[in-house]
């Protein structure tokens, strides 16, 4: 409840921005074919709603699966790098960073070449753009574990695995959530690029297909839906974070 009430401030700002945008276009600031007015976008959201919805479902599935893959792979990767601090990590980490610099228009056709025309190449693209933040934040979370805690566990004769399970893993969880929230925001826009890889459906495809047809308002509508989707996912993750990590949000107080 409190979250919903707090949301009115950004909503107000958003409405203000949309108002300015509407004025700008209506007063002739830009050609509607290049920058449509908000009311045109809204109109497209209504008239094209079934088209937008069916394509949204396609993209949503790709994004959710892609993030899931990125989360599992990213987490596993981070744990592996954490356990192999001296050998794997210095070798792999720079490559990981480099992987983010490869332009997607180069990767996408390559993936189609290897993986065909199904959902797989799109999953790989989405997973690729989301994977990085999860690895980085999880690894940072694992590395930031209090060394004194680890020492304490060693005096309890804890095995490496038990130290990981009882201390390092729970300590790193806030980091995992942070990485996931970033990943979610990035993945949704990544879907637009992902659908360059052998698609004939999805909001990204619809967006690309609408531009040469000068259906710019519809292209914007597709993006608006993607943005809203990203916000919803972000909010859901924040909720999940509060449920999974109640201790990080509990009020602190001293009892006598």
């Amino acid at each position, binding site marked *: 409840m409190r979250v919903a009430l707090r949301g009115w401030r950004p909503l107000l700002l958003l409405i203000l921005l949309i108002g300015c945008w509407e004025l700008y276009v209506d007063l002739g600031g830009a*050609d509607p*074919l*290049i920058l449509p007015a908000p009311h045109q976008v809204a109109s497209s959201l209504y008239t094209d709603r079934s*088209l937008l919805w*069916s*394509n949204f479902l396609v993209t949503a*599935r790709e994004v*959710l*699966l892609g993030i*899931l*893959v990125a*989360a*599992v792979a990213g987490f596993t990767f981070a744990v592996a790098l954490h356990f192999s601090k001296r050998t794997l990590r210095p070798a792999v980490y720079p490559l990981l960073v480099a992987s983010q610099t490869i332009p997607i*228009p180069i990767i*996408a*056709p390559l993936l*189609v*070449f290897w993986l*065909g*025309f*199904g*959902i*797989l190449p799109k*999953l790989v693209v989405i997973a690729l753009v989301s994977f990085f933040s999860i690895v980085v934040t999880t690894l940072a979370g694992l590395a930031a574990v209090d060394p004194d805690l680890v020492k304490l566990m060693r005096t309890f004769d804890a095995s490496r695995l038990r130290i990981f399970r009882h201390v390092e893993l*729970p300590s790193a*969880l806030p980091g995992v959530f942070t990485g996931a929230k970033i990943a979610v925001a990035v993945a949704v826009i990544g879907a637009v690029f992902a659908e*360059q*890889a*052998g*698609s*004939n459906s999805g909001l990204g*495809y*619809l967006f*690309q*297909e*609408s*531009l*040469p*047809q*000068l*259906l710019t308002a519809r292209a914007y509508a597709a993006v608006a839906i993607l943005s809203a989707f990203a916000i919803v996912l972000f909010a859901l993750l924040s909720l999940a974070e509060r449920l*999974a990590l109640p201790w990080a949000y509990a009020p602190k107080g001293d009892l006598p």
Partner: protein
Amino acid sequence: MRRLVVPAVLLTLLLAACGEKQESVSPTGANTQNLTLMLDWFPNADHVGIYEALANGDFKTAGLDVHIEVPSNPASPLELLAAGKVDAAISYEPEVLLARNQNLPLVSVAAIVQEPLTSIVSIGSKHIQTAAQLRGKRVGDAGIPYQHAYLETILAHERIPPGSVKEINVGDNLVPAMLSGRVDATLGAYWNYEAIELAQMGKHPNVIRMNQVGVPTYDELVLVVRESTLVDHPDEIRRLVQAIGRGYQAVRSDPNAGVANLVGANPGLDSKFQRAAVRATLPAFFPSNPSNPWGWQDPVQWNAYGQWMLSNHLITNPAAVADASTNEELAGQGL
């Protein structure tokens, strides 16, 4: 928290399993052949005959299970074709020659659009009705080398010094470039696409087609396959080509039904626009000589265009030009 991991993994696998089954480029049942056809671009009016054939079951009747794919970028179709990832691709005559120049063993088996669609387009207020009026103007194009060569050829044809025309790379954004006034005209827009868009917007476009101003005529859209496919599966290609031909012929008899099938398969398309585009393009889908079958490619014209590419240093290997196209799979041919 631990308890969420296993169900999450299971959910992933389940969702992935619900995905589309992978394409296979191999025979399925005893009677139907799987076949992947990659378009040159997003589905549009130029492809109306293909979607008509699909909707009417012409492919099925021909024993083919055709899967249509949309490319991620304009270079993909021939790349993927050469790499064996698709069985047939739609592309442009210059691209086929460029590919063969790179020793890619590809061959064009049918012309889908029998003449150039590429044009010099400008909005009415610019008053560029003839090529001579390009002097001193800014022309936008997508930066493709052969488009640059078209411009040079046109200017030479009109005896305009090349330096007097400013060529600007506007990428794919031809119409916005014209609307914003950043360029006076564009080269690369199609007279059956962008020009119709501009007309529907009330911009009264002026159109100068390539083959009207000194560029040798060519087939704008062609159907391309690997040479090896022609050798190993000529019958399959023949059935594909002739089924597509039937599709275009059906559209000629009933263009509205054709548009309905095009838009039915691609709900993102605008019916009104596609109808106008299909009507405008219809004549170009068929050879000028009615005794030639649908898809006819004129060897003389292909050779002339190939020579033009050679003399403009767009290709270097004369062998690329010979045998770049064949009519043997068309109806009534090669038997």
